[in-house]
């Protein structure tokens, strides 16, 4: 249990916001291993435990693999669990991710997006979370620290929904959010607990009612489990929309479901972004609109499940679509670009991919402006390439 906490305005880092979100959700167990730029999340949480604000169990382990293993066991025993990681840590955890999701355990784990080696770096790139695409988790990306806090709260409600029962991985950009302070409105613990309601585990390890979990399973059964998992991920689309709507009604902040469309209604071209670049792109849209250019923006919040219908609907009325990616599937293009092309199958719209900010390189206003300029050319059928590497040595565009 947590002590009663009043609503308050805070000026905090994204890491703090994530830890605070977990605190408000009254998590029972946290198991984690430190890694920059995530460390502060669990460090802050351990301070809450230390200060007696929560009586959650805080388990120190010897690697991320053990952290996820401990969370899986705790969640299976009926606890609401929380952990956090980044980069190499997430890569090392990979084996356990599919176990958490296939056992249908709604663990919540913020991941601070950081480049995966080699070479080693600590700055923002999405090549840690994107390769987890098929791990069966809900995956999404936050734009600012307020969204980080709000999303941790919503993540528990989405994941624990009886039609979903899947773990959730909200992502936040290394340093740009994790270590940067922003004003954040924090609701009271009562409001949050009323919103997410008490966690009722769907299956529980109970000595009085023994049950075996994850046992050796022959081909007669596994395929149906995969199907149910797929259905649950599809169900999550509606649940995500319902939860964001309910959140908006209760807390006054509307995240619009899986995507947020900005000035798309009469747009001729739209750019799809994820994470913090969205804020920069919103400014550019305003500036270009002021010059009479009909540009729009889709803030992609969820990567899994992917908002296929939402993107198709907007695409119907535009002439070209750009996708900004912060990681690359070598030889093919950015992961969100690939997903978007799949979503738009049969629509015959030009789709252009922009790769920028890999390894943590800054993505500045000029870079985003260039993306829109190329898109406006693509609309006229004048884009030379399908994939553009922005601000990259050895590439001229």
């Amino acid at each position, binding site marked *: 249990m947590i002590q009663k906490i009043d609503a308050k305005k805070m000026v905090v880092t994204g890491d703090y916001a994530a830890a605070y979100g977990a605190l408000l959700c009254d998590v029972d167990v946290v198991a984690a*291993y*430190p890694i*920059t730029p995530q460390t502060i999340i669990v*460090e802050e949480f351990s301070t809450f435990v*230390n200060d007696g604000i929560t009586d959650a169990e*805080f388990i120190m382990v*010897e*690697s991320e693999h053990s952290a996820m293993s401990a969370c899986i066991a705790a969640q299976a025993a009926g606890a609401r669990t929380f952990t956090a990681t980044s980069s*190499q840590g997430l890569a090392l955890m990979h084996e356990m991710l599919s176990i958490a999701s296939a056992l249908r355990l709604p663990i919540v784990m913020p991941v601070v997006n950081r480049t995966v080696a080699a070479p080693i770096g600590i700055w923002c790139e999405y090549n840690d979370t994107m390769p987890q695409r098929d791990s069966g988790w809900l995956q999404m990306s936050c734009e600012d620290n307020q969204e980080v806090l709000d999303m941790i709260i919503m993540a528990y409600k989405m994941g624990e929904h009886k039609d979903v029962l899947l773990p959730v991985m909200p992502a936040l950009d290394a340093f740009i959010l994790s270590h940067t302070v922003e004003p954040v409105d924090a609701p009271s613990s009562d409001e949050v607990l009323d919103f997410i309601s008490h966690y009722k585990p769907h299956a529980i390890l109970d000595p009085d009612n023994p049950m075996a979990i994850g046992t050796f399973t022959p081909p007669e059964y596994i395929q149906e489990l995969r199907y149910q998992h797929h259905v649950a991920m599809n169900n999550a689309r509606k649940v995500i929309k319902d939860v964001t709507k309910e959140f908006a009604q209760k807390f006054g902040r509307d995240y619009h479901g899986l995507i947020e469309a900005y000035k798309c209604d009469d747009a001729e071209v739209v750019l799809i972004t994820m994470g913090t670049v969205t804020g920069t792109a919103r400014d550019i849209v305003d500036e270009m609109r002021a010059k009479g250019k009909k540009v729009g923006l889709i803030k992609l919040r969820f990567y899994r499940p992917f908002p296929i219908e939402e993107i198709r609907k907007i695409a119907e009325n535009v002439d070209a679509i750009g996708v900004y990616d912060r990681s690359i599937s070598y030889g093919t293009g950015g992961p969100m670009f690939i997903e978007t092309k799949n979503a738009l199958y049969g629509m015959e719209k030009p789709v252009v991919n922009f790769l920028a900010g890999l390894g943590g390189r800054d993505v500045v206003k000029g870079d985003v402006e260039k993306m829109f300029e190329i898109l406006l050319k693509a609309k006229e059928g004048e884009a030379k390439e399908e994939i553009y590497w922005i601000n990259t040595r050895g590439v001229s565009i």
Partner: protein
Amino acid sequence: MEIEAKHHPMDKYLRADRIPHIWCPGCGLGTALNCFLYALEELNIDPDNLAVVSGIGCTGRIAGYLNVDSYHTTHGRAIPFATGLKLAKPDMKVVVFSGDGDLFAIGGNHFIHAARRNMDMTVLCVNNYNYGMTGGQLAPTTPMEARTTTSPYGNLEHPFNLCHVAAASGAVYVARWTTLHVRRLKESIKEALNKKGFSFVEILSPCPTAYGRRNRSPTGLDMMKYYQEHSVIKHGIDPSEADIEIGGDIIVGKFVDIEKPTFNEMVKELIEKARK
């Protein structure tokens, strides 16, 4: 008198373009590295025939500063990387230089198995009792009752005695020194480098920034004084008797120096036998 040196006497082993290093004032890592460089120099080791492998951490930065074939691997995986190197290049001298967390927490499994196989390599472990790089969390070496960011009321987990782990796992050479014992440390590193098989040197080293501040030794000097007051040299004792406790004696010395065929030798012998 102003002392100005344009070059470090060991510059030839260093990537000067990577200096200044990232280490804090008072950190023991510079001393540990220096002892290693002087050991190389005195043994006249050909830098072209030397590979240094590190994991991740403040200690893990060492590989990157060395102007030899050096590898900065992932966290915990320096030893399997070095194993691959040694198997592919049996004549190469392979050294692993990494932290206590890297080698004994996330990578602990690899340590015991390389020692068990008697892989021919030298493992130098800088033990600063915590995860320095990530800000001072509890490590498997943190002494009982010590405070870290994740043990604010004092550690209640029993730590590893690294020399005991090494010896019990099969290492043929095991020694422990602190960064105060620069000459003895250098001599031990030389012996370890000359030893055939799995040799291990534990280097107790101050981490004032992440560990010392929380444990009444806020500067590197405090820690060195502590080493001076508490170190007791006991060569040849059973390393199980050399546990590290706060306020207790720090037992240093050479604990194990035995002969055993190395993994590569065993493989060679087997191949010869099989061919007959």
